[in-house]
């Protein structure tokens, strides 16, 4: 198939960017969107033009490296959970015009073309997205049984790939879905209880310093490649409020 792609090109963070149109020719419908970009890049290099820079690695929807706005939609498909690398060209039509842009968010400055700096998400994890257990100090794994539904729900949240699509799609550039996924993954498990309330407060505070605020548009959920539910945001908010209105001691002893 043949398409026209309009790609955002920007040489560096400071440089001015703009759309450039390219022909994507003889593309197999079985190719992925990134493989289509590979084909375009090969032809660009042959013509002496620098390739379109974009991030990618696993190409199977798990590493979270890839991500771009395709026709205004993060990862290019609303409602069908997938990362850009999992989007296949069979979802497009012959002659389509496709607009390709980097994640647009204040917290994600552009590095080059479609590559942005998402390190703010790691900073949120550093604020408390872990269980403090040093290597070697763990008890026997089966000592604490975990009800299967609890483990399943925790896993639903833990499936987040930290791609940043939620932030990019949000009109406010908020990182609530991402943060709530980590808060819920750990907060649901018995192992995560000791730090549960301290964790949520620390993570939310750091998140709010860097990212926009959530007004529950729900756009994030629609584009999340792992279909992470917006219910986790409600769960995070409940924990946050609980933590704010009670002292750590009160919560811990359950009064």
């Amino acid at each position, binding site marked *: 198939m043949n398409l026209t792609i309009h790609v955002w090109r920007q040489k560096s963070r400071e440089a001015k960017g703009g759309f450039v149109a390219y022909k994507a020719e003889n*593309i*197999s419908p*079985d*190719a*992925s969107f990134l*493989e289509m970009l*590979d*084909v375009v890049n*090969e032809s660009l*290099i*042959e013509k002496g033009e*620098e*390739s379109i820079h974009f*991030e990618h*690695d*696993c*190409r199977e929807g*798990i*590493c*979270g*490296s890839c991500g771009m706005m395709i026709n205004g939609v993060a990862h290019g498909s609303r409602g069908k959970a*997938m990362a850009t690398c*999992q989007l*296949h060209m069979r979802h497009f039509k012959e002659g389509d015009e496709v607009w390709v842009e980097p994640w647009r968010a204040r917290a994600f400055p552009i*590095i*080059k073309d479609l*590559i942005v*700096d*998402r*390190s703010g998400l*790691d900073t949120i*994890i*550093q604020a408390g*997205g*872990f*269980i403090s*257990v*040093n*290597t*070697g100090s*763990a*008890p026997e*794994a*089966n000592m604490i*049984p*975990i*009800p*299967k539904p609890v*483990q399943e729900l*925790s*896993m639903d949240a*833990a*499936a987040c*790939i*930290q791609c940043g699509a939620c932030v990019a799609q949000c009109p406010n550039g908020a990182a609530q879905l991402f943060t709530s996924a980590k808060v819920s*993954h*750990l907060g649901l*498990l018995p*192992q*995560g209880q000791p730090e549960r309330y301290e964790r949520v407060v620390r993570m939310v505070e750091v998140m709010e310093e860097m990212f926009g605020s959530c007004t529950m548009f729900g756009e994030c959920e629609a584009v999340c490649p792992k279909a992470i539910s917006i219910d986790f945001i409600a769960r995070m908010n409940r924990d946050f409020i609980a933590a704010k209105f009670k002292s750590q001691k009160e919560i811990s002893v359950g009064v």
Partner: protein
Amino acid sequence: MELNSKTPPGPLANKWEKAKASYKLVNPSNKRKYDIIVVGAGLAGGAAAATLGELGYNVKCFVYHDSPRRAHSIAAQGGINAAKNYRNDGDSIYRLFYDTIKGGDYRAREANVYRLAELSVDIIDQAVAQGVPFAREYGGSLDNRSFGGVQVSRTFYARGQTGQQLLLGAFQALERQIALGSVKMYPRHEMLDLVVVDGHAKGIITRNLATGRVESHAADAVVLGTGGYANVFYLSTNAKASNTTAIWRAHRRGATFANPCYTQIHPTCIPQSGDFQSKLTLMSESLRNDGRIWVPKSKGDTRGPKQIPESERDYFLERKYPSFGNLAPRDIASRASKEVCDEGRGVGASGRGVYLDFADAISRLGRPTIEERYGNLFEMYHDITAEDPYEIPMRIYPAPHYTMGGLWVDYNLMSNVPGLYVIGEANFSDHGANRLGASALMQGLADGYFVLPVSIGDYLAGQFGKKVDAGRPEFAAATAEVQDRVSRLLGAKGTRTVDSFHRELGGIMWDYCGMERDAEGLRKARTMVRELREKYWREVKVLGEGEEPNQSLEKAGRVADFFELADLMCLDALQREESAGGHFRTEYQTADGEAQRDDDKFRYVAAWEFTGEKSEPRLHKEPLEYEEVKLATRSYK
């Protein structure tokens, strides 16, 4: 050069205790005075960097990814082994050890493998404590599944995302140390050289991928956890950026490279569908718990799978290996699949595919159970191929997946260059000539959490007061070499893209150094690789500048190193005149087509020393002594 494995004396089961007891210790208050560079933050590097930070060392951790959580380990699907014996099915540390040694076709070090089996149980404890949401039974205890090459259920899993969840455990521990200031993270930094000072590894040269700047970093020791090199084949199941540069550069600085020809071709991958294809997708081995593999009995059968009656199907693994059936080890299953396709019985448009059929399992267990077990894998298959595996069998074909070879290390995971440690897939240590499923995650984490953080103290204790700084001339010399390579790549100004060369190289390796090898083909491949490599340096076209983000340049450097490695792989495959595990030499096979080892002549680790670009590498042999297991011909019949 003598390669001393430093395996502790005494009975197998006491060796690790003995080693720990004999290690020199670093005084806790002195630990922060030691700088350790860890390159890589996959399961191995991430676990090591976090644990070293917890111990109080001053760690600098480098990755080429934008975040440590993106390491290729994230893509592991199926699971991780551990000798917990929760199923009460007769498992034990000894059995896990034995299965792994046998699975590796008796080409791994006994002591290392035994330690791995011992530590496997601690890994599960650690991961659960970190919040890894492993699958559970209704009673709340941990669930297990089976993997290839074994007859017990010892594989722990988190849906089809086990690697992701284990890596997140290590990543979270690492982020905690970053917040505490014991680890400094350098994302988007690619190591391009190792710096050796007075014979000891004392630093690295990196290129900052966001700015293009070349930088020097000094430390008291260097740890490489930089993953495997299956991308030498271009098409593989590895992530696109996985490469050999870190270990290859260390090899050129003196570290011997062990068993480079031992590569694993995984039987269950989605077949290639066109020239545009950039990588191959693995369908987890766990699918073979419930899927049955077959092809039509007769050649050129073009009927759809459902039109072929039971009596005209050949369930070839069940037929040839009745006691292990569809769960025969990878090397054996891959070769059997290739064989039926070579006979003209392969399926799909290319004829390079076999069916992996779930119809029986669905009718026996019901669709919901299958969905629960493999839902995300089925969906992945459906997305890629536009075929619904609940309705028609999957089509699969072998693909390069894992590399057992890597830098040589002793029992303490130190290479022959003092101060240079190598962990995870980057070393050669535990899998012999074939790795069993679900044991790479185990090895990476055993190395990273439990072995390296203790064994490295033994070296560091002797380095007190011997700090070097990056102002030493060795750093300037290595920097100049890195910059020279960069300018040669940019300056070639040829006509062909990096990818086109990489594809061609991969094709040569797949044809002559892939699933089957022979002397003539390997000699031919060496000539072809060398010619192509010369052409590469003349004709490659890399646009852009060095001092900016430049993805073509990044790739160009990695492919340049793949060329050199490819030659060594062929040479290693050529010298090993036997078949063992994933290394199958057609000249050496039994009457029924199985691998034929030659224990008298080849029961050794082949460790290659770099002697210069123009001269042949020198072979060193580390003999493998088996005190505990009796060498036998592997049988899965």
